[in-house]
């Protein structure tokens, strides 16, 4: 017997990792991301009757995104905005850490300094491989906005990474 519940689970549980990844990219904190994912699944379940689409993954991720944004409005301190978060104190790393690990850590820090809008387009376009059009319809903005936001995000990321590396070099001296 294939009831609606098992259909729901079959369609949406396989995308749990993607849902969590998106929430984590937006909110950064593990606990917040977990809470948002849980809430998003409940919302999805409630809205499931209205789901007529062919792409459950995109549908779910849109709900995750909206839930995450309501979350940031409810708890605004959790989101790093455009101007804040630039002056984070560098964390001390053990000397034995490999070069690659160190670069990776720097990348994470640079990403966390970006505004959430920028992180989001980077994730959706570069990592998830969505098209401009898909992103535009999920974000409810024109395609041109997606393209320019992505350009600025890439540029900003490289600038932030350069800054993070500069600080790291200064600390070593």
């Amino acid at each position, binding site marked *: 017997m294939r009831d609606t519940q098992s259909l*729901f689970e079959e369609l949406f549980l396989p995308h749990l990792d993607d849902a969590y990844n998106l929430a984590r990219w937006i909110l950064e904190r593990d606990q917040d991301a977990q809470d948002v994912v*849980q809430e998003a699944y409940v919302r999805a*379940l409630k809205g499931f009757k209205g789901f007529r689409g062919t792409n459950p993954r995109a549908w779910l991720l849109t709900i995750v995104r909206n839930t995450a944004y309501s979350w940031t409005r409810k708890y605004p301190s959790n989101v790093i905005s455009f101007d804040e978060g630039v002056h984070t104190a560098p964390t001390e790393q053990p000397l034995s850490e490999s070069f690659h690990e160190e670069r990776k850590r720097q*990348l994470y820090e640079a990403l966390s300094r970006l505004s959430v809008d920028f992180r989001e387009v980077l994730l959706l376009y*570069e*990592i998830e491989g969505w098209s401009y059009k898909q992103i535009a319809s999920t974000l409810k903005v024109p395609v041109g906005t997606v393209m320019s936001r992505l350009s600025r995000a890439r540029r900003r990321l490289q600038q932030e990474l350069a800054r993070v590396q500069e600080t790291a070099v200064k600390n070593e001296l």
Partner: protein
Amino acid sequence: MNCEETHRLLEETFGTELDASLRLEVEGHLSRCSKCRSVARECLEFRSFFLASAPRYKASPQLRARVLATIRLERAKRGFPRRAQPWLCVAAGLVIALALTLTLLYPDNGKELSGLAVLDHSRSISANHLVDVASGDQHVVKPWFAAKLDFAPPVVDLPSAGFALLGGRVAVIRNRPVAAVVYRHKKGFVTLFCWPVNKDLVSDGDYSIDGYKVRTWSSAECNYIVVSERNGRGLNEFVDLFRDHLQSNPY
């Protein structure tokens, strides 16, 4: 096209996918300017580094269990929007009513459930299929259950008392998937069956079934049945240790 403009374009595209008209201009500039060529190379390198190193977070087994439990609970609470045929709902209703009646008619189900547990325990040994997840680490076994079932049983390791955790499997007792945690004790095995309480509390019991020794009890959260080898050696000791442990480390 000057250096500054080229530099900006390269950064904004990660060095890829310039549109045709700009590409000619940028390529023209790059052929003349070695400094910008190295910037272009850096941008491409950065992109592959970014793609390889950007975080891809995975949901923990705990989150998986939590989400599953929440959506099932939500459905039970609100009545799930149905696409199923009405007769299915009627049939499901009848099944639930029948199950409730049986539970009410036979409130002390300890012995019957113990019989089923003994059957599963002895079968797992004769079929040499003790565990689905073989690990002596409770931090492996517990999340494994959380991912398989809609709950995580308490898993404790009691090596100093001679009960070595072997792992876990999912058993089915009266059509209900339950957690079976398996220990080795001397030359025999002890299986602890556990499932969340759902109105049907198992009473405290002490049975001897087909030569196996069985203890049953329930806490606020879970029902427990422990089955041990034929001579019943160590069963009471195990149950005492297990319950002590749960009391000092609330589940």
